[in-house]
């Protein structure tokens, strides 16, 4: 029993004597002081780091919204227009020679232009003359 007690006391004494060593105490002290008294730049950095995730989340949301809207635009179906009114023959006013224009049976605009060019030979430019002669330059 005494042996056991002696062994215990010896071991305890040795553990007490050996003290763990704090490495770089000066640096450690500085770290503690930095943590205790944060300087202004640290405060700004902390604020930025607090706001950063929110900004990242907001930008992701905006990108998703943009993609969603693009997708929605593609899905819009073309409106079926009532073209029956457009297909009806239209008569131009008298000042425009009172022609009847029918899209189903369109007039020969080229022939019409040639005729116009012949009638107004003295007023049209050389370019228009060429166009009247050859159709295109």
């Amino acid at each position, binding site marked *: 029993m005494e042996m056991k007690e002696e062994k*215990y006391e010896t071991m305890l004494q040795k*553990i007490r004597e050996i003290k*763990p060593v704090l490495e770089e105490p000066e640096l*450690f002290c500085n*770290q503690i002081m930095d*943590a*205790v008294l944060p300087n202004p730049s640290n405060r700004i950095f902390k604020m930025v780091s607090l706001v950063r995730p929110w900004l990242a989340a907001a930008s992701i949301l905006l990108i998703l919204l943009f993609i969603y809207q693009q997708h929605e635009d593609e899905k819009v179906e073309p409106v079926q227009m009532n073209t029956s009114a457009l297909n009806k023959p239209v008569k131009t006013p008298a000042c425009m020679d009172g022609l009847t224009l029918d899209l189903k049976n369109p007039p020969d605009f080229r022939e019409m232009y040639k005729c116009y060019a012949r009638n107004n030979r003295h007023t049209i430019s050389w370019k228009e003359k060429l166009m009247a002669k050859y159709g295109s330059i």
Partner: protein
Amino acid sequence: MQINLPEIISQAKQGDPLAFRKLVEYYQNKIYVFVFRMVCREDEARDIVQETFIKVWRNFDRYHLEQKFATWLFTIAARLCYDRMKSFRWQKINAIEELKIIDDLQSLEHPEMTVINSDLAGIIRKLTDKLTPKQKLVFVLRDLEELEVEEVICITGFNAEQIKNNLYLARKFIREQLEKM
């Protein structure tokens, strides 16, 4: 270096960072030794010591000058150690490290050998690892730090009976461990 501790404590309490720095320089080693003996890990010990001083600075208004400063400091450190050791993460780390505890008790038999922190941690862990956080806290404060029972009561918040029981169980377990070696 002779320092007027009560005056420095009083200045630090009033928010003087230079006085607080002197306090940190004066006490950091003592607290580190205690915390290291409790947690047996260098990084954890440094972390807890840093947290202790941060708590001291933030809660200085709760400290009364008639109180013993070292006891108040040890109380904060002890509570942090106790909470850390009770945490789930701690149990997990212990379970992993149990497999690789350094079997280096022989180094104590040869005083000429330099016992580095990790060896010391291994030895303390080997002897005290199976103790409950309460038992280990009482054992470290009473038997390794050699504090008076009144101080241990003040630091831990346990009553005399609890301290006596926990210390008895801790010593019994350590003796058994020594028997096995």
